[in-house]
């Protein structure tokens, strides 16, 4: 017998926010796991990308505490492989943006030693700060 899952208002609001920001119809996700299977960062993640899709679909805002969205480096491997043509990297970006727009940065420039900063190519530094700070 079919079971209907009802999201509460806050759950619906969260799902809609992420769908609007990412531009992806997250509810189309079939949970096939292709994104997780090909993700080069999977061993670093606490929640895998397909689980992220599922939890966002169910409006579970506690997914914001996962470190997965910060580990995703927008390499677009999942993007080119999703059989439903969903862009999971855009979903990660949307989740990061929700946090960054609350003025909560993920990194602090003070934590990078002068020695490292001198060695690093500028694209690394600019890239990290564009992804990790609001």
């Amino acid at each position, binding site marked *: 017998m079919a079971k209907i899952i009802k999201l509460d208002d806050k759950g619906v609001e969260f799902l809609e926010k992420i769908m*609007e920001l*990412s531009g992806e119809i997250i509810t189309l996700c079939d949970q096939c796991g292709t994104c997780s299977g090909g993700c*080069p*960062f999977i061993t670093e993640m606490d929640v895998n990308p397909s689980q992220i899709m599922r939890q966002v679909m169910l409006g579970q805002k506690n997914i914001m505490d996962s470190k997965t969205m910060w580990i995703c*480096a927008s*390499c677009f491997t999942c993007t080119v492989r999703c059989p439903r043509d969903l862009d999971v990297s855009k979903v990660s970006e949307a989740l990061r943006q929700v946090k960054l727009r609350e003025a909560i940065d993920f990194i602090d420039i003070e934590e990078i030693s002068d020695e490292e900063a001198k060695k*690093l190519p500028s694209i690394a530094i600019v890239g990290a700060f564009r992804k990790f700070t609001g």
Partner: protein
Amino acid sequence: MKVPYFPGCTLKTTATNFETSAIEVAKQLGIEMVELDRWNCCGVVSYLVSDDLMKHMAPVRNFIRVQEMNKTGVVENENRLVTLCSMCYNTLNLSNKRMQKNPDDLQKINDFMHREETKYDGSVEVVHLLPLIQDLGWEAVSKHVKKPLNNIKVAPYYGCMLLRPKNVGIDDAEDPKILQELISALGAEAIDWDSGSRCCGSYHTVNNKDIVINLSRGIIEDARRNGADIIITSCPLCAFNLDNRQQDILEKDPEFETMPIVYFSQLIGVAFAIDKEKLGWEFNHISPDILF
């Protein structure tokens, strides 16, 4: 052929070896890369959320410069903007595609930049030097080879930004061939491997270098397993993560066998027998002795 060229920050700082060698190689192939007048940062990484128009302004400003170069006659009827750095290529191209697809977005950005005399009309085409060379035909490349790279086995490393997402990829996202074809045209042998488009860890090198060390080590060891002598790349960030981070791998494991990482343009330069100093080896961390 005179084409507007966008260098980007890193090619002027820690990847001057990439710029020097690429400009020289392009010149020999008849491609004159004319640096954009007053270029500005591309943004490095593309913003992927829907309401981020402001973040696309920097790329668009560079496209305006291309139109102006055509207007002032610096280039003639050349709407292509050539890039070398894979990240610049990806970021500029993604912004351009968004502008071309959404006239409303373009209008808003043009309105916002009301002080710019020229309005961006969506006409620019962002290209990478590799397909530009491919268009000349591999035979044309082979003709310039003075020192065929016989017996050198090269791992073609694409990374992410040249191939994905599909609308900006220079080749098939899962089965690219362009670097293999280039390697063959230079007389070298391209190895067959699985890590050619696997992420190196990108900007995590700033705050979480262990991720990069693990990924880079995996890529280098895969190249080694498949018989490669060197790895070639087109991305200054991949180059840093694969090349300089070998020092960090060595600190963890002194038994680790290093591998030289060179830009594709340096490899072409060696095959063309271009003077060593013109190919800029100053930032290659692991010395590519095998090429000399």
